[in-house]
């Protein structure tokens, strides 16, 4: 049990001492995963909408592809992105490896399938005839899409929450493409791995508590947004 007490005390010390190394790590985690989920939402919500509502040949195959990539191991994604960005890789000229931008790219690949998949099933559950009704009230294609997404807002928001939850807590991809360089690309999850490696279990646990606490706060905020307008529900 002793390790837990040490960890709690250590977490408190880390957060309150104003340790110059703590806040940048938290900030890096939030910046990388926050921008990645924002990009994933921008890409994934429209694609999920199209996949959920359009009928075209190969749709089922595409859905299988999306569902499979929802469960892709972060290390594998990290490896692919690493190989693309490495000096001798096809995108090596970008000189992005071991930078936060590379981490964002890897996390976009991780979060986007989740956003697409969950959004697709959310909009597909909106009655098809509602689209007809919206069109019959004079909605243009864009207005129709916005109304459907608004109608499926809980599911669409859930897709963003799922995407964020997956990437804020993953370590495989960020450590491969970011390298977990202290003061440069270190995030909370790579800090845990590094401290475990050094045998500093107290500090590792402290980071774990901080990570869980922050994830919890963010999810409370997102869930609140998700439930806005629930007053209209039965």
């Amino acid at each position, binding site marked *: 049990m002793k390790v837990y007490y040490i960890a709690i005390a250590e977490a408190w010390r880390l957060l309150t001492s104003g340790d110059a190394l703590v806040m940048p790590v938290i900030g890096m985690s939030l910046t990388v995963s926050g921008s990645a989920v924002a990009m994933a939402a921008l890409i994934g919500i429209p694609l999920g909408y199209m996949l959920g509502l359009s009928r075209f040949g190969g749709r089922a195959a595409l859905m299988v592809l999306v569902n499979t990539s929802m469960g892709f191991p972060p290390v594998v994604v990290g490896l692919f992105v690493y190989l693309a960005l490495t000096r001798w890789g096809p995108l090596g000229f970008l000189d992005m490896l071991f930078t936060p931008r590379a981490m964002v790219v890897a996390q976009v690949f991780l979060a986007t399938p989740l956003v697409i998949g969950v959004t697709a099933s959310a909009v597909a559950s909106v009655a098809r005839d509602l689209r007809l009704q919206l069109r019959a009230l*004079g909605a243009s294609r864009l207005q129709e899409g916005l*109304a459907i997404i608004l109608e499926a807002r809980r599911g669409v928001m859930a897709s963003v929450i799922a995407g964020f939850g997956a990437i804020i807590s993953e370590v495989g991809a960020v450590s491969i493409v970011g390298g977990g360089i202290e003061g440069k690309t270190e995030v909370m999850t790579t800090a845990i791995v590094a401290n475990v490696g050094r045998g500093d279990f107290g500090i590792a646990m402290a980071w774990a508590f901080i990570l869980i606490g922050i994830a919890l706060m963010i999810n409370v905020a997102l869930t609140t947004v998700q439930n806005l307008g629930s007053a209209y*529900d039965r």
Partner: protein
Amino acid sequence: MTAEASDMLAPPTAPAVRGEGIKVVYRRRTAVDVPSIEVAAGKTYALLGASGAGKSTLLRVLGLLERPAEGRVFIDGVEASGKDLATRRTIAAVFQKPYLLRATVGANVGYGLKLRRVPKREREQRLSDALARVGLAGWEGRSALTLSGGEAQRVALARALVLRPRILLLDEPLSYMDPLLKRSLTLEFAEILKSERVTALYVTHDRDEAAVVADRIGIMRDGRLVSEGDPETVLTLPTDEWVASFLDAEAPAEGLVATSGEGVMTLACGDAMIIAVGDLPLGSRVLVGVPSEDVLLFEHGVQIPRTSARNQLDGVVSEVAPAGAAMRITVAVGDLRLASTVSRSSAADLRLAPGSLVTLLFKATAVRVRPRDTIAPIV
């Protein structure tokens, strides 16, 4: 003025909606095949038919919500398609289910106005007017998801009316209502459609509903229009056996105009001679029907009271069947079959049974006549 000039000055007479050569095919099955259909401006046209007859599909095509495999749609005489947003915005629709958005009643009714960027003040005014129109004044703030079926359908109607559409599509708007609510809403809808002077296309499978709302009725079967005309003619004079059984009416008899003059005709229907109003040319082939409500029935041999009814025919009861609260008595007059609706107690008093001899009495004005082949029967 020359004839040409007067033509040019004539008021525009283009029908509000016209379909030409409409064909819709689903998986190689022809769902709709209608060579021509017109809805006059300001009138209500009811498409009547059984489920799967293609009524709703035709409605969607004419309302620019679905593209047909073949054919063209004209709105106010101008060819139109679903791509013309401006034209599409002159049309509004109410469907079988209200499909309200997860929002307030006000947001639902105001949705179409918002799409059209109507200024807020005007929007609120029109919104409250429209809600008042459907008997829901002051309901703006309520959640649309807590409404009963009847209330939700009124909101759906208000949502369409608030747009002041030129053309209103109504696709079985009352089919989910209980009979009592349906009857009152049917009357309400009919009254609103008349007073708004909107051109309406009304799909239903209920002949009584169609009779109440429509200025013109088209009956559809297997994607085709099999009968079309004013409600009285269409509902009382089926064009063939199928239409008759669908309308629960007597199949029409075929006849020939034997005499004609001064607005009165004698029609030879098999052995029977029927006097009717009209002036079709002598020898015309016609379809003849008499609504069962207009036929009085007496025991054979009793003293018939003096009336103005000019048709008196003797016949044999061939069938006695319940029809709603009343009884429907089918009588064979030679080859001709006529029906009379009598109350259940009268049917019991007269001890009517197949084989009973009876006398039928009906007015010449009750006889419906239409020239044969106005609508080609299905073969």
